[in-house]
């Protein structure tokens, strides 16, 4: 990335009562990046965002902006603006006054305010809405006003706290592309909080997966999806089959009752591991001693593909395929070495430090 991070979180800790909400968060956010904090509710993602915004003071650790420590700096003195979950538009002010709020506080002259408000409303496709009562707007329009109100202050970083949560699916999709466009047009940093993995994968340059107050994995969407660093990330991002496996030696693993070549190494001999296989990576073959044999239990049509549940000696596999088998049929399942994702068993601790060996290929060992 380009030079120094714009925001740096170092060992941030927060404890409420005896619940550790954040357990030592370390995160670098670079200029012009679209970073998404992704995780289930209660994972600490919103708290992390509020620390950046200045609404929550970390009990331990440092937060730096542009290399300067900003612990204790109140929200109104930070160069960041926030879009709140339920927009938090001021109900006693109209659209114009809401958007102009920040500039009026900065005592910008009224002529300039008027042109900048018009520009901003143009950007969010709401020009002409100036005199409207914010309470009369639809959810999507209120959302746009909130975006304009935050961006008019030219923040270096825009914080977005589940901004699309209250919108219906169609509108959410539209706003996703629109937000991404706005971010690229204005060329500023977005820090986005969501629990929706699809949203995160669509919009982000970098995804930070969080759980239980800890960062599980940081990476570009492709690597988060293709190389989840532990079972939690795998389960949270997309559908996946998570199985117990035994690593017999480098590049050779046993799971699901058979032996497979893989591309990971660096484990102890016969170490027990978690194996993650994406449903779409499973290849259906004729049952044989080279694959995992199971009985098709259910077939569900999903539009682009069929989702099949295949029972293999009590383990239910989820398989996505463009061709359907019939229920009760026997099937063989195979996976190419590159699609077998192997992770150390989660011992809650140094989860995020697991290194996945990305060497291609690997020797072929036959049993």
């Amino acid at each position, binding site marked *: 990335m380009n030079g120094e991070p714009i925001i740096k979180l170092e060992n941030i800790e927060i404890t409420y009562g005896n619940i550790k909400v954040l357990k030592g968060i370390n995160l670098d956010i670079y200029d012009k990046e679209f970073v998404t904090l992704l995780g289930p509710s209660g994972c600490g993602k919103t708290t992390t965002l509020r620390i950046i915004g*200045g609404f929550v003071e970390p009990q331990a650790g440092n937060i730096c902006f542009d290399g300067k420590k900003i612990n204790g700096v109140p929200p109104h003195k930070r160069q960041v603006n926030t879009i*709140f979950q339920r927009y938090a538009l*001021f109900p006693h002010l109209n659209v114009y006054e809401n958007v102009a709020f920040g500039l009026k506080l900065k005592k910008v002259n009224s002529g300039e305010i008027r042109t900048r408000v018009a520009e901003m409303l143009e950007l969010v496709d709401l020009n002409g809405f100036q005199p409207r009562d914010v309470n009369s707007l639809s959810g999507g329009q209120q959302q746009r006003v909130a975006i304009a109100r935050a961006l008019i202050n030219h923040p270096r970083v825009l914080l977005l706290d589940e901004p699309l949560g209250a919108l219906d699916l169609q509108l959410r999709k539209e706003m996703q592309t629109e937000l991404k466009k706005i971010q690229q047009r204005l060329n500023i940093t977005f820090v986005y909080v969501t629990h929706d993995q699809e949203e995160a994968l669509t919009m982000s340059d970098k995804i930070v997966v969080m759980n239980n107050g800890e960062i599980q994995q940081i990476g570009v969407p492709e690597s988060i999806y293709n190389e989840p660093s532990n079972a939690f990330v795998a389960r949270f991002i997309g559908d996946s089959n998570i199985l117990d496996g035994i690593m017999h030696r480098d590049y050779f693993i046993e799971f699901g009752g058979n032996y497979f070549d893989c591309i990971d190494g660096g484990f102890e001999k016969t170490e027990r591991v978690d194996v993650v296989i994406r449903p779409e990576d499973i290849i259906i073959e004729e049952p044989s001693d080279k694959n995992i044999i199971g009985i098709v239990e259910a077939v569900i049509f999903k539009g682009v593909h069929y989702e099949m549940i295949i029972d293999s000696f009590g383990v239910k596999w989820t398989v996505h395929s463009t061709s359907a088998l019939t229920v009760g049929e026997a099937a063989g399942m195979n996976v190419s070495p590159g699609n077998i994702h192997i992770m150390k068993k989660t011992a809650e601790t140094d989860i995020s430090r697991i290194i996945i060996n990305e060497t291609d290929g690997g020797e072929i060992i036959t049993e």
Partner: protein
Amino acid sequence: MIFKSRLPAAPYIIWVAVFILVPLFLVFFFAFTDTGGNFTVVNISDVAKFGPVFIRSVLLGLIATAVCLILAYPFAFAMSRMRRGLQKIVMMLIILPMWMNYLLRTYAWMTLLETNGLINRFAGFFGLGPFQMLNTDGAIVLGMVYNYLPFMILPLYTVMIRIDESLIEAAQDLGASFTGVIIKIIAPLSKPGVTSGITMVFVPSVSTFIISRMLGGGANFLIGDLIEQQFLGNAYNPHLGSAISLILMVFILLSMALLNRFDDDETEGMLV
């Protein structure tokens, strides 16, 4: 459709008719008639003689209302930002004095404020006083504030808990300091609470007679005392009493209308 029917309101409508509209009509009738039952405006014009009493009552009422507002506003705001559990306890403490009889509470102030009452005796320990506290305008205002303060706190608190924390955060986020938040967000959004609080304190303060009688001594007349005198006192003249009541009523209605002019937004939960 029972839910659309007005039938359930019947008991209240009868109540209003018998105990509010009829007496109101009687007040009106008495105010414009003499002892013989003939129409006259003498009663109304006689009210002018009591101009100074009116002015004093309104002045004391205004002071008491202002003091209540100054005390209640920051308190209600702080209360609205407390933990839920704490809010309930504080609410109890505010309502607690109301469980005791109003007269009794005012009597208690008499014993506290007397020349040889508790406060003066305490001050005496330090060689101070005794101060003349009872039978002063200050004592009357104190009595009004003491008795009506909850009626200022409650409507303010009610509007303030409805101000979402995220609005305050959004304002800070956009560059508003603490005072900025108060002026630009809290003040305009709590306006309906301020107007109903003022109404609920000012109206009973202006027309009280017990507080002025007990804490102000007999000498310092307020409108309430004046009216009471015409009906139950030596100056028995229900026609004049009705006229004074009528003028007071018109005055209060006018001031409330004026107050509501300031409250230009359409507001829910307004009184009057």
